[in-house]
């Protein structure tokens, strides 16, 4: 499932504020999984926090955002700047991630000014990539085991 979320950048939010909102969105999204290691995710996001800040401040996330890919999830995070930031509402609604989702990868966009810095920095991260993201989310967790049952959807079916 493809989703897009938006965090307005300057002049609404400075670099640090923008990065914090993006970090919260990614961590809370991954927190829906029972198996993804959140501490490792936090460490890797902290390692690239300044790069995300510079990407946001430089307007590099206006059109080609950060892309978080996990089992059944393809989330693009955009950061408009300038006038566009003023006319855009913040949207950090939590996208749904299956409890059984086990892997994740965050793609940083290729840019002119920061490409070398990004390439050097992501080398130390297992879950951060500077390659082109896939167009679609990989298949979700396989059905069949109890841990793969979508309890939220099941609850919705029961309620309807």
């Amino acid at each position, binding site marked *: 499932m493809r989703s897009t979320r938006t965090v307005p*950048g*300057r*002049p*609404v*939010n*400075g*670099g*640090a504020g923008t990065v914090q909102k993006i970090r919260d969105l990614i961590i809370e999204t991954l927190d829906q999984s029972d198996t993804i290691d959140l501490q490792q995710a936090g460490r890797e996001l902290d390692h690239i926090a*300044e790069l995300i*800040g*510079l990407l946001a*401040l*430089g*307007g590099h996330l206006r059109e080609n955002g950060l892309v978080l890919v996990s089992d059944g999830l393809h989330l693009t995070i955009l950061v408009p*700047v*300038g*006038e566009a*930031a*003023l*006319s855009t509402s913040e949207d950090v609604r939590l996208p749904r991630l299956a409890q059984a989702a086990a892997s994740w990868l965050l793609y940083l966009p290729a840019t*002119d*000014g*920061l490409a*070398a*810095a990004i390439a*050097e*920095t992501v080398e130390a991260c297992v879950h951060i990539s500077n390659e082109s993201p896939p167009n679609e989310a990989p298949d979700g967790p396989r059905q069949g085991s109890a841990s793969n049952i979508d309890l939220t959807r099941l609850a919705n079916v029961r309620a309807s």
Partner: protein
Amino acid sequence: MTSTFTTSRTITFTNTATHLAGAAVSALAETLLTIGISVDKISALYGHEKVIASWIEEQSLHRLEITLTPPAGKELAGYSVELDYTAWDPEQQFRDQLARIRRQSAKEPSVAIGTNFSVVVKPRPGRTLSSQPGWRSVDRVLPSFAGGYRHGTVGTGPGGSAVFRSHRI
């Protein structure tokens, strides 16, 4: 038929300060990375964004200066961002010219491996920069930042603008 269009946006000079500080840090950081300053040193510059925004908001900051010091070499003028405070016009647009500055910075000569940089801030005449943690007065003779080649406008917003210059050309 007569038509009218009315904008209703609530902005303050804080927005302008946030916009200009962010664009200035972006332009300086990307330029330093482009000329070969190592990525681990850039974090110091990124960390100054909030303080720079504070000084712009109090309208005390005149100019940001970046000096470059090669290993065992003399400290040289590198780049500057100069602030201009204008009359408040809430209808003025928030813009930047970072794409133009990136094109210009790509032509800048690279620095020697191991080159360091310093950030120097100058107050407007008659103003004082508020005290900020980690910042102190300079007790050495700094290189001249007179003149310089204008790379472009880092950003403009209601009540202010900032111009980026190279002092290496």
